[in-house]
């Protein structure tokens, strides 16, 4: 996954990673793309992990807004599998495309066939490798499918430049092109604000 994201990033780009976790993506991009990065994170253990990797990190909750960031001030804004955990994904999408010249967003696909089967045949909320939480303790309060996300982009001024279809381990799988919304486990998008 890091590699795929790296392919989307220009050398020496200025990158903002929203929900940067332990900073491993930014550390990877620093090494491979010579980027100057900044991560946002609220988990203090993960902030400590970022400092451990000498990755710039700011203690900020994305749900409280991103108005402190200037328009088009980053070459790329990354949101890796966390848009579904936000209170207002639509606001976040608008903000991300405002701040970043490009945005790289990945989402776990809730319409994946395994999820569908669990719900239809098992009668329970789906639990998978990409979505490992029980319904009551999941941080993922706004799950969506590829179709849903793409509709959101249309409705909120984001133009999709590229889409990659991945299995939950972050490997690109060409067979998923046969039925993306059914087969894809994680989708990776490159988007920008529509002119």
């Amino acid at each position: 996954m890091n590699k795929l994201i790296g392919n989307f990033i220009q050398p020496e780009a200025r990158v903002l990673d929203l929900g940067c976790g332990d900073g491993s993506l930014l550390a990877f991009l620093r090494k491979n793309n010579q980027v100057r990065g900044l991560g946002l994170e609220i988990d203090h253990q993960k902030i400590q992990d970022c400092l451990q990797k000498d990755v710039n990190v700011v203690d900020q909750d994305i749900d409280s807004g991103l108005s402190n960031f200037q328009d088009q001030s980053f070459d790329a804004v990354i949101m890796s599998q966390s848009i579904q955990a936000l209170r207002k994904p639509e606001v976040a999408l608008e903000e991300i495309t405002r701040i970043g010249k490009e945005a790289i967003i990945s989402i776990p696909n809730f319409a994946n066939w395994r999820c569908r089967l669990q719900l239809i045949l098992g009668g329970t909320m789906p639990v998978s490798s990409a979505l490992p939480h029980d319904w009551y303790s999941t941080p993922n309060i706004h799950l969506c499918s590829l179709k849903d996300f793409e509709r959101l982009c249309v409705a909120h001024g984001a133009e999709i430049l590229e889409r990659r279809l991945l299995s939950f381990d972050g490997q690109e799988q060409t067979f998923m092109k046969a039925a993306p919304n059914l087969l894809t486990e994680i989708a990776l998008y490159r988007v920008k604000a529509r002119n």
Partner: protein
Amino acid sequence: MSSNSLGQVETKRFIHKDTFALKSGKTLQGFEMVYQTYGELNEAKDNAILICHALSGNHHVAGLNEEDKKGWWDDMVGPNKAFDTNKYFIVGCNNLGGCHGSTGPNSINPENNLAYGSSFPMVTVGDWVKSQNLLRTHLGLPYWYAVIGGSLGGMQALQWSIDYPDLVKKIVVIAAAAKLSAQNIAFNEIARQAILADPNYNSEDKLPKTGLGLARMLGHITYLSDDAMREKFGRDMKKDEVNFSYDVEFEVESYLRYQGESFSNRFDAHTYLLMTKVLDYFDPAEAYEGDLSKTLKTVTAKTLLIAFSSDWRFSPERSRELANAFIEAKKDVSFLEIDSPHGHDAFLMPSETYDNAVQTFLEKNE
């Protein structure tokens, strides 16, 4: 003696003989600056750290002084502590205008051979940083690996990164702000009025201890959080019944009076006045039409900003403003808001999150 104590430490004196111009336009005919050092300077001379003190601090940062008293940041500075003297050569100095040995209101004015008192010229954070840079040269240090401080000390660290970008690699700015708010200046003004209104202010043989004590009582409240005071004192009384008088009845009154009195016995009122003005005047963005990100344009130091959740004297919002300016200026910055019930004073107290963050930030260089 425990293995993480520095034990007895020695106070040294740096004497600068040349004229020293101050931002106010006035000059000092040279100055003396007391300082202490902890740990060893390595061969490459790349492990020196300057720790800047806040309003009532001084050069005695850690270890035990001549009177066997612990330094003001002994909890965090020493072998294996957050600021590890096994790794770093740490310097603490008493700023100009101070009352612990550096040239200040208690010093003799060479022009009239009298103590300066209230005639000691006004100094600024910029003046301090300039004098600290002379100390750096005196110590033979090519640059500071880091400059660190909390509160007014954090402002000095910030000023260092702006004024001498080539001479500091990292700064840690803790519980500080890029400038004071109106509320903060207002607190300082009340503190000053308490001193200036004391009939003993500027008297020849008496000290304005009542005024200084009052100023400290006020300051002390602003350094604690509402919750911390509730936890510590609540409405506890010295006796079971009220006695309908203005004597000390509540524990919190007793505590504040004690704090005020003991402070007025160890600190100088002129220095206190001066320090509050240094705080009020601090505004490095002033020279850039108030644009803080422009002010930071030449900064090269990696920056760590830390704030504490219950600090209302220098709230986390002030640190966030600073973080945003660093981000806008495209600088390397990290910011951490630590949960703490201890208010502004939290910056003096070690905690796991706090210690780990500063240790790791200082140690890692990718």
